[in-house]
């Protein structure tokens, strides 16, 4: 017999074959005409309803519409678990609905915890559940030990005094020394920081006693090019934290446990080191290319998006700072400050989009000089795969490369005149964050920005109006509205949250960086309802994550807009719908706070 019920959908695929038979025993199919009530409020729930065809609506006591349920959706889980449903469920269209008897449902929940968990979990837990399991473990296991993983190995003579050895360790930042006691590799012993400490404090050895007797032999070692996994097993077996890495008979470095662990979580640590150590633009470019892979790995490992964003921003900043140093002569570095803006400035950069940056230079640097530095900088970034900003928000343009007093004059003029292009520039500048050069140039500008509303309060509603210019992609009935198959999540979801938080931050004079931090601050100050602020953060993260996942699966340019709703599964669609409702509510709050409906 062919399968009538689709067991492939999320919670039902947890059931074993035997449980599926049980499931079918308790299953029936009902047919409902428009207006017919499936569940009365206040009555005990007799069944779990799973929509096969048609639309069912959920209404509260005062006839307030809560949700629509379409094919593959199920309800009313809360009613089943609490024994009484609170809302009324009515058919909107003619609907065919599967009904699973409550007794069978509870029986299955008892038998199968994974199945039950899907129903008992709340929204946040559901998101956890929907995340995929780690998939890049293989990458770690198959990574080979390379030179960039290693700490330098410092070889000392056996008669070196303890004091000198300790000072040497401190100077070089090394964490262990190799002590030469005889010929070849076998003649080497190892002295770690802990050994030195113990010698000094426990055994009371003086500064000038020789290091030789402390050395531990033989030193555990692996070959360069071995699998990292081997090193890890060796460390676990011998309960040690470092192994020497050899090439032939030559020790070329030490591999530390933290290094291995950071590789295990991802390659982030190494990437940061590579950026920091890079001396030429070419080396930097290679590091920059790894960044996208890193993001994909992190996403695949189910790391929370706000941590990915933090990490990627940190790496990006390092990268930009390095490029800046390559392009600006040392004498100039102290007299100007590079700002990043847009998503990078907010610390929400994921995939490379375009260059959004500006420069503050000291008043004694000539504008032409500063612009020539920035022209090199822009070119270098372009070579790295950061496309030129289409809006011209780049430090190589005169309007984004100004002296500090010029910037402040510009802000004052904005507060007085409030021309649209000035306001646009202001809202871009709100996200600015210094990444390289002299921070002291940025602090006065930040100060001016946080006090800006004292003069410019009347323009705030103009700024806020942009928040509501795009419709939330929800239908009249609260379902997802798509253009074709695509749903423009940037305009419909991300932009309102980001811009709304930005304008509110400007009004409140907040100095927090990033949308999530701003929302948090707004919530704790009582500007936004704390629950709304919390939900907005979750929604924002969800939008970013969905967008990232789709960008990664398509092509990695970060510029293509719109997500394909058809590729999302039911849980994700549910979450998306819920989040868009939150955005809608936020827009209403903004409309009220800035009196946008009277403009």
């Amino acid at each position, binding site marked *: 017999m062919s399968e009538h019920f689709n067991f492939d959908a999320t919670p039902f695929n947890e059931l074993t074959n035997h449980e599926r038979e049980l499931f079918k025993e308790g299953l029936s199919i*009902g047919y*409902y005409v428009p207006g017919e009530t499936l569940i009365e409020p206040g009555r005990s729930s007799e069944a779990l309803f799973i929509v096969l065809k048609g639309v069912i609506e959920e209404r509260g006591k005062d006839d307030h519409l809560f949700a629509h349920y379409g094919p593959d959706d199920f309800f009313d889980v809360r009613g089943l678990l609490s024994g009484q449903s609170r809302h009324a469920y009515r058919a909107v269209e003619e609907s065919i609905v599967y009904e699973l008897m409550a007794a069978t449902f509870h029986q299955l929940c008892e038998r199968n915890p994974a199945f039950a968990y899907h129903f008992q979990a709340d929204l946040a837990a559901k998101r956890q559940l929907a995340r995929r399991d780690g998939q890049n473990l293989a990458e770690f296991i198959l990574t080979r030990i390379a030179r960039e993983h290693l700490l330098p190995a410092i070889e000392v003579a056996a008669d070196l005094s303890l004091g000198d050895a300790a000072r040497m360790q401190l100077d070089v930042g090394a964490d262990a020394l190799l002590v030469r006691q005889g010929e070849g590799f076998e003649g080497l012993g190892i002295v770690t920081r802990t050994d030195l400490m113990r010698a000094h404090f426990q055994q009371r050895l003086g500064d000038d006693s020789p290091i030789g007797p402390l050395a531990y032999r033989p030193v555990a070692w692996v070959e360069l090019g071995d699998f990292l996994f081997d090193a890890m097993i060796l460390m676990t077996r011998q309960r040690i934290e470092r192994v020497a890495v050899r090439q032939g008979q030559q020790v070329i470095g030490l591999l530390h446990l933290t290094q291995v662990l950071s590789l295990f979580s991802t390659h982030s640590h190494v990437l940061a080191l590579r950026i920091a150590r890079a001396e030429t633009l070419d080396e930097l470019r290679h590091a920059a290319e790894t960044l996208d892979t890193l993001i994909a790995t992190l996403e695949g490992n189910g790391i929370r998006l706000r941590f990915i964003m933090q990490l990627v921003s940190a790496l990006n900043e390092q990268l930009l700072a390095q490029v800046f140093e390559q392009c600006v002569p040392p004498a100039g570095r102290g007299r100007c400050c590079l700002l990043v803006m847009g998503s990078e400035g907010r610390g929400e950069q994921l995939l490379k989009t375009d260059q959004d940056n500006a420069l503050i230079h000291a008043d004694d640097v000539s504008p032409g000089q500063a612009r020539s530095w920035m022209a090199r900088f822009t070119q270098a970034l372009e070579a790295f795969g950061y496309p030129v900003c289409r809006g011209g928000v780049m430090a190589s343009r005169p309007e984004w490369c100004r002296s500090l007093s010029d910037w402040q004059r510009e802000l004052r003029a904005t507060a007085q005149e409030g021309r649209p292009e000035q306001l646009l520039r202001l809202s871009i500048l709100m996200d600015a964050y210094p990444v390289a050069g002299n921070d002291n140039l940025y602090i006065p500008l930040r100060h001016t920005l946080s006090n800006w509303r004292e003069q410019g309060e009347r323009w705030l509603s103009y700024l806020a109006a942009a928040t509501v210019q795009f419709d939330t992609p929800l239908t009249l009935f609260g379902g997802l509205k798509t253009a074709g198959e695509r749903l423009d999540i940037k305009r419909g979801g991300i932009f309102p949250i980001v811009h709304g938080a930005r304008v509110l931050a400007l009004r409140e004079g907040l100095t927090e960086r990033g949308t999530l931090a701003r929302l948090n601050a707004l919530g704790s100050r009582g500007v936004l309802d704390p629950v709304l602020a919390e939900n907005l953060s979750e929604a924002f993260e969800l939008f970013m994550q969905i967008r990232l996942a789709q960008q990664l699966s398509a092509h990695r340019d970060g510029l293509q807009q719109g997500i394909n709703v058809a590729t999302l599964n039911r849980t994700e669609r549910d979450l998306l719908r819920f989040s868009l409702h939150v955005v809608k509510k936020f827009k209403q709050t903004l409309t009220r706070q800035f009196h946008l409906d009277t403009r």
Partner: protein
Amino acid sequence: MTSFVHAPDLQWPSWRQRLYWWRHDPMEADEIVSLDLETTSLDPRKADILSIGAVMIRQGKVMVGERLELYVEPPASLGAESIRIHKLRRIDLEGQLPLEEALRQVRAFLGNRPLLGYYLSFDMAVLNRHFRRLGQPRLKNPRIEVSALYHRKVSRLFPDVHLDLRFDTLSRALEVPVTGRHTALGDAHTVSLMFLRLRKGSVPYPR
């Protein structure tokens, strides 16, 4: 919600049962069984039963769990012509239930509930022919013919239309998902969904 009609007592004399169903609409019965057969031929005088499928409809809901799906030992008349339709080969049916046992189970499942089907008269004729051959009483259950129901509903609104009553047309017009076409249980299932739609839903637009 309409109140449902209980089936009459099985022990009643047949005239009294018939009177009962004359006074009550079989469509409103508490329990209805949707029935379908797969046979070797479309001639009720020659057709042999291969498979029997039945689904219970209780109080206006298709009970997916309460179903009957029987396969019968291959009869001699099983030929290539019909295999192409129902895809039951001789080898698939080897070692299945003997016909007599299958018919006993069917009778127990049906009881005296009203029967629902698509071209039910054919299935009933085939079943009754086999019952007669085995010397058992024929099935006297009231019948609900889904295509007649469809015809009645639609022609009331569109009296002049020429109605296509083929199974696939019906399922399309009634917007009912088809699962397992040309299997006894699958067809019985689809027919029961058609019935639910016809009993309660709006008048379908004929296609």
